[in-house]
């Protein structure tokens, strides 16, 4: 990799693109030193904020020629350090590519640049009775390019799928600056499904410059029920009960007592404070269908020992009930200076057991853990509460986090459901995948980016790194994070 100096890179780039889109002063680079996972910080050599695809191409060609690594960044809301800058590299910020290019209401598609915000898509589609289904919690701020790179989910993906299910075409620039069109407005393009591969590829394979999204008709109606439970296991089993009854809710979310207390103190959405866990189950569709299914859901909830049930009777009440869930993270953030958000997924049937083991870990390490998560698809978001100013607490929180991910892998799940591996979970990948699988990932990456210039050191660990970790793992039975270099 390169040993190009800042001034050299600046000089070369300024010949290819306008000087104004390049940021080199340390002061101006500071806002870009981290993404949503702020425990990792790094200044890049330079940042570039291109205004069109042509400039992106010029920048890539220049970096490729000089052997300079490129990290692509959108809104910077990612939670895994995927957009963490590379010390000797360029940070390619795509927020200025923010135009909605074409909305075709008859075909129910919209063509956007990568910097368009997720929510802006649904807002543009609303006058046509359409919307964009994936709704990550950061949807006010996060951008479509990042959504594709991370294959973002959201509270409605149980019924409407992830980003990969709602993208028809991606235009991608390779590190050579060559444009590839993957997929298109016609379904099931010939050849390998590289469109599927790009979703969730974490900026490792190319730079997304344009996306064609699928829009859906806005459902006629939606209704949510809030159920309280005296035992967290009952709530977990009720989740399986609802799915087992042949119902696919639009959203099925769970919060434990600590999270409920936090949101009640924050915005008081009217959740039952005496409950050990609450479930939010949303149904949407035609009026008749929602009515039929709501009745069935209420029966399942009662049969699983729900201690309280509250069904929204108006749109205002529905949004009010959701406000608790949607404010859960900031609410938890108020009761402790810092929290560390995990993102493992497990088979639903393992929910009761894994939640029990998480509470054991919490007690062992003396850190409180709030559980707020997408119960319907088994995607856990344990929030580990800590104080970064208390010596050793961050390290303990990271260790507990790694142990939770380890639990998820052992339960037949995955270390990341929707936040991505990025920098954060690179070591946990060693637990989930064998050497041959990691080798296959590296070979695939090399097919796109032979010199490994795109987002180096992220998403897939080197075999060497895993071997070192494995050896230490056996001795200490703990992941000694602070002792390892991050690369």
């Amino acid at each position: 990799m390169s040993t190009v100096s800042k001034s050299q890179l600046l000089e070369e780039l300024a010949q290819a693109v306008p000087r104004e889109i390049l940021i080199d002063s340390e002061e101006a680079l500071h806002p870009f030193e981290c993404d949503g996972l702020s425990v990792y910080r790094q200044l890049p050599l330079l940042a570039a904020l291109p205004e069109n695809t042509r400039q992106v191409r010029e920048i890539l060609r220049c970096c490729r020629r000089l052997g300079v690594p490129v990290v692509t960044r959108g809104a910077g809301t990612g939670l895994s350090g995927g957009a963490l800058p590379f010390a000797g590299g360029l940070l390619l910020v795509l927020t200025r590519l923010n135009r909605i290019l074409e909305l075709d209401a008859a075909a129910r598609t919209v063509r956007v640049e990568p910097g368009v915000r997720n929510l802006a898509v649904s807002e543009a589609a609303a006058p046509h009775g359409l919307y964009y289904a994936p709704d990550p919690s950061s949807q006010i701020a996060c951008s479509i390019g990042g959504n594709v790179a991370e294959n973002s989910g959201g509270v409605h993906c149980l019924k409407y799928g992830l980003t990969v299910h709602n993208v028809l075409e991606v235009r991608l620039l390779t590190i050579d600056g060559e444009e590839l069109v993957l997929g298109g407005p016609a379904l099931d393009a010939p050849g390998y499904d590289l469109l599927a591969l790009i979703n969730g590829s974490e900026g490792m394979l190319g730079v997304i410059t344009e996306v064609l999204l699928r829009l859906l008709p806005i459902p006629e109606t939606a209704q949510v029920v809030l159920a309280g439970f005296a035992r967290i296991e009952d709530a977990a089993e009720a989740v399986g009960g609802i799915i087992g009854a042949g119902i696919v809710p639009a959203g099925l979310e769970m919060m434990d007592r600590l999270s409920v207390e936090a949101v009640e103190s924050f915005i008081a959405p009217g959740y039952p404070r005496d409950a050990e866990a609450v479930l939010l189950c949303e149904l949407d569709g035609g009026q008749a269908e929602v009515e039929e299914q709501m009745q069935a859901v209420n029966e399942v909830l009662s049969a699983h020992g729900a201690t309280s049930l509250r069904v929204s009777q108006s749109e205002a009440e529905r949004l009010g009930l959701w406000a608790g869930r949607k404010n859960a993270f900031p609410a938890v953030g108020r009761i402790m200076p810092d929290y560390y958000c995990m993102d493992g997924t497990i088979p639903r049937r393992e929910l009761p057991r894994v939640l029990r083991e998480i509470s054991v870990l919490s007690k062992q390490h003396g850190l409180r853990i709030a559980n707020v998560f997408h119960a319907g698809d088994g995607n856990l978001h344990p929030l580990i509460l800590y104080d970064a100013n208390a010596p050793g607490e961050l390290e303990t929180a990271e260790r507990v986090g790694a142990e939770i991910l380890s639990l998820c892998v052992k339960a037949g799940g995955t270390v990341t459901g929707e936040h991505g591996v990025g920098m954060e979970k690179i070591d946990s990948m060693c637990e989930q995948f064998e050497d041959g699988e990691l080798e296959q990932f590296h070979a695939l990456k090399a097919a796109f980016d032979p010199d490994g210039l795109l987002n180096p050191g992220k998403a897939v660990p080197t075999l060497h790194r895993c071997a070192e970790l494995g050896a230490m793992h056996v001795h200490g039975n703990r992941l000694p994070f602070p002792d390892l270099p991050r690369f």
Partner: protein
Amino acid sequence: MDREDVILEQVLEAVEARTPVAIHGGASKAFYAQPRSGEPLDLSGHAGIVEYDPGELVVTCRAGTPLAELRQALAEHGQHLPFEPPAFGEKATVGGTVACGFSGPRRPWAGSLRDYLLGVRIINGRGKALRFGGQVMKNVAGYDVSRLMAGSLGTLGAILETSFKVLPKPLRERTLRFEMEQREALGQLAKWSGKPLPLSASCWRDGQLFLRLSGAERETARAAESLGGEAVDEADAFWRELREHEDEFFSSGPLWRLSLPPTAEPIDLDTPCRVEWGGAQRWYVTKANPERIRAAAASAGGHATLFRGDIDDIPRFHPQAKGLQQLQERVREAFDPYGLFNRGLLAPKR
């Protein structure tokens, strides 16, 4: 029966000797596989459902499992594969279905085969048995190799095992028939598809549009009433014949599949056609000049596959842009560096 050891041994021998292998299951879709060379590698014996927990909405089975057996097992619990894959014969296996990546009438509304593929176990061209994805619905650890296997025609590796997301079967289905010409049908479909209606299939043919609704009893009744048209009784057979190409139309000559933006204008190739998927999939049996067919599809924003039948020197699949074609070859080499699996099947070098 678990035959992974035997299959792995056979692949390792092939890798060692650099012998090409031609993978097959039930050979029900042999018509789709262009002539290929190599020692046969039979995956049909590696069969059986490995895990199925209806409450998880996930099923895992070995590649050789007959598609019919999987369907039956799901149906016993009121569930199904929402992408409604065609089998094209009683011997169709799950592995072959994934390798071909076919989806049926429900595809534009419910999603495609790859949309429901959660995990795979494969043997790659280095003779390594690898697992990607898993049995959970949300999983972004590592590149999504599982979905890459859908439609790869076995050219990236031998697919040993697959996990699918499954869903409850709709409680009720109704089919409506309308008398209308193709252009009007396409316009109506676009209009209806933009409304929150429980659509689940469409087929226009010979001046008639068939529309299927799926959902709760009252919901489908209400939608049927608002849409009008004439109710079709025992329509399951109609949709099955369409999906399985049992309708004589499909075997009456070279069959072309045009995948188009649903709103594309009607394309006239001087022969009758079947328009599915809300206008996004159109079938033609025609001896028209293949160049003309491909040009028509491309100018409408889509592509054309020679689905059944062979025409000299005409590749089955729509040619891709050069850069994309080269990348596809590099992807293939990343999995199968010696080009042993189903050589020449997907992206013939010329």
